[in-house]
């Protein structure tokens, strides 16, 4: 009997305590702590963002006594990170107060009602005027015109080449290919002259996710005849099926992997291709050139996962050419990340306070330099400290005038998935270019609805 009583008592106490616990965190809705969620790459050596956010947390907590910032890393591959934050934002009990989002996902998450409009906040924030227009449009909804995030950084893409390897293969540097054929020729030359060196890297396949689509496919597609309209026609509001540009881009992927100009297929299709290329193959001089993002150098900085002091003498950059060298001759893609406040955040006001600190001029500059990303604040972009921080900042900032943004629409993530599928099937040789393009058209119609597609040229 006594035992039973004790057990009953214990249960009562436990329930009361946990109820009190719930009450406690509910009460915190008024204001003393926030949860900040960001993406921790699978490469555990890369702690740049963690370090930066921890510094921000410490100084913020010091300046605002009694407030608490909880920094929550989500360790995952890029696609899994999106899934995890979406699941977190679905429920009020797990929604963070501040979340790090890829701008490509923002519209999709807005449509789901996951994000809070920030207009009342930015209206009172003098710094908002310093943010570049294009960056602002990337974080606002075309549907209601409201702002849903504060842009963190942007980027451009081009070709990183190993000057020494190219010279060894007899290719003159500085190298600037004019057409896709120039790229393939260079790769073939490297293949012939330098056995053991992977001629080029072009991201591909489903495991790579958005990396395959943006650095790999769209750098090709947006350089074809249809240019900006090859994926989505903003005027007619239709997604494009069966265009020649799409097939040509797939054909290029097919050639690269069919002729063994890229990584071995199994490595190219693996989830770690990006890490492998950036932290291993490039620093070990095993890849001649790589179509990749402006941020590559941050792999090799002293603070990066694979310090490589010689990189600035070894690596150089070229712009990605259009298919046949047609105007404007160069092509680049831009995206970037942003900070949002979820609709179900418990403490949006404090989250905003922290956001203002995070994105003020000094901290933005520091962050753009650490991560060697392209600045979204015009005052930072003009700052010599930023421009001279790495030898490539100037070059990649100069690509901004050739750059394209992805169609920032709720369906984009699904379209992107369909593209990775098409890429993978031509990379493995499982299907021909025509079949892969046909499958893409079907997948596209399923994803966006067949009344939202139109036949391209």
């Amino acid at each position, binding site marked *: 009997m006594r035992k039973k009583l004790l057990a009953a008592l214990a249960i009562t106490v436990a329930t009361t305590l946990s109820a009190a616990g719930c009450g406690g965190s509910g009460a915190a809705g008024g204001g003393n702590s926030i949860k900040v969620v960001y993406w921790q790459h699978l490469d555990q050596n890369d702690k740049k963002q963690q370090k930066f956010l921890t510094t921000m947390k410490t100084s913020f907590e010091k300046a605002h006594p009694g407030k608490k910032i909880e920094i929550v890393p989500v360790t995952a591959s890029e*696609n899994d990170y999106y899934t995890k934050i979406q699941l977190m934002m679905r429920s009020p009990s797990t929604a963070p107060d501040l979340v790090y989002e890829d701008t490509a996902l923002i519209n*999709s998450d807005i449509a789901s009602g996951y994000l809070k409009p920030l207009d009342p906040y930015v209206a009172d924030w003098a710094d908002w005027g310093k943010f570049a227009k294009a960056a602002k449009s990337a974080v606002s909804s075309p549907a209601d015109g409201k702002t849903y995030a504060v842009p963190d950084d942007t980027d451009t893409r081009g070709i990183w080449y190993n000057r020494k390897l190219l010279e060894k293969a007899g290719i003159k540097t500085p190298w600037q290919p004019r057409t896709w054929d120039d790229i393939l020729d260079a790769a073939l030359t490297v293949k012939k002259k330098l056995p053991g060196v992977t001629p080029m890297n072009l991201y591909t396949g489903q*495991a790579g996710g958005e990396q395959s689509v943006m650095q790999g496919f769209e750098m090709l597609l947006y350089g074809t005849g249809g240019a900006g309209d090859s994926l989505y026609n903003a005027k007619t509001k239709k997604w494009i099926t069966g265009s020649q540009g799409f097939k040509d881009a797939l054909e290029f992927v097919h050639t690269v992997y069919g002729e063994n100009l890229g990584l071995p*297929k*199994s490595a190219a299709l693996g989830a770690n291709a990006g890490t492998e290329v950036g932290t291993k193959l490039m620093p070990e001089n095993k890849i001649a050139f790589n179509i990749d993002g402006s941020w590559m150098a941050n792999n090799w900085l002293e603070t990066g996962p694979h310090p490589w002091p010689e990189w600035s003498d070894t690596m150089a950059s070229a712009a990605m050419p259009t298919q046949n060298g047609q105007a404007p001759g160069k092509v680049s893609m831009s995206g970037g990340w942003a900070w949002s406040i979820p609709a179900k955040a418990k403490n949006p006001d404090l989250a905003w306070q922290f956001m203002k600190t995070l994105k003020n001029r000094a901290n933005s500059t520091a962050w753009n330099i650490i991560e060697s990303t392209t600045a979204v604040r015009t005052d930072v972009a003009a700052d010599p400290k930023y421009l001279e921080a790495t030898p490539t900042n100037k070059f990649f900032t100069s690509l901004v005038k050739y750059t394209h943004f992805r169609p920032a629409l*709720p369906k984009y*993530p699904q379209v992107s998935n369909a593209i990775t599928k098409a890429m993978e099937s031509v990379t493995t040789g499982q299907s021909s270019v025509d079949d892969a393009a046909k499958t893409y058209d079907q997948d596209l119609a*399923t*994803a966006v609805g067949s009344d939202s597609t139109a036949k391209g040229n």
Partner: protein
Amino acid sequence: MESAAASAAAPVRPSGGRAGQSLLRGLPLLPSLLLLAVFLAGPILYCVYDAFTDAQLTGAAETHFVGLDNFTRAFGDPDFLNALWLTLVFVVGSAVVGQNTLGLSLAVMAEKATRPVRSLVNGVVIAAWVLPEVVAGYLMYAFFYQQGSLNDVLGMLGLPRQNWLYTLPILAVCLANVWRGTAFSMMVYSAALNEVPRELVEAAEMDGAGVWHRLWHVTLPVIRRSIMTNLMLITLQTLSVFGLIYAMTRGGPGNKSQTLPVFMYQQAFQNSLIGYGTAIALVLLVVGALFSVVYLKLLKVEED
């Protein structure tokens, strides 16, 4: 899956008595029934509901009832049919043929073996079973991938290296699942073989029956119930294998090792199509149920 199999076991019947009394006796079951209802039946019902909607993880705030759309879409989707086919290959290849026969052979051989050999074999086989699925997946990845230990062994023997995970991924995941799951069948059969009456085997031996004849005509008929039970359990376990395949190949390259659970995951969480994903989950549930019905029928036939 496993709890479904457990509930298929014979129900405990109250040994007579008045109705009130049996009701009273059932009372202690109430909490567990409640838990089952909330945590098992609840999610399943919710899943059934979701399967008939266009619910999305991201991209749409509202969900609509779409009737059978998800199912008609699935059966018109070559990727789904591919996944369904690969699931059958995986289940039949790795469970019904692989784990089942290997488990039986090991159990038969262990019976004859000396004690140290038996404990060694048991230890090795059970170690694979004890490992968490994802850990086993990574080990198998390290074993099969291009620079992996299997190729090192092949290289030492002067045989050409193979790119297992790339050229024949479904075979690689099947072998991995055999490696991981054989212990279960072995244990079931070891226990069953202990139940085979010695006199029966000895009598057959006296009549001049060889090893194979004794196995085929004496041992197997005696342990047939265990065979069916084992088949049913490993089929259900194998149907739901996800971590092993995801860790080894992520369903790729292309969709060459994309079984239904992996396909479901990709649709629900990578394509954000929760409704479609749950519809596929339901199909998986039906496939499992069909297998169970077949096994139960076979068991009945054998008993009659």
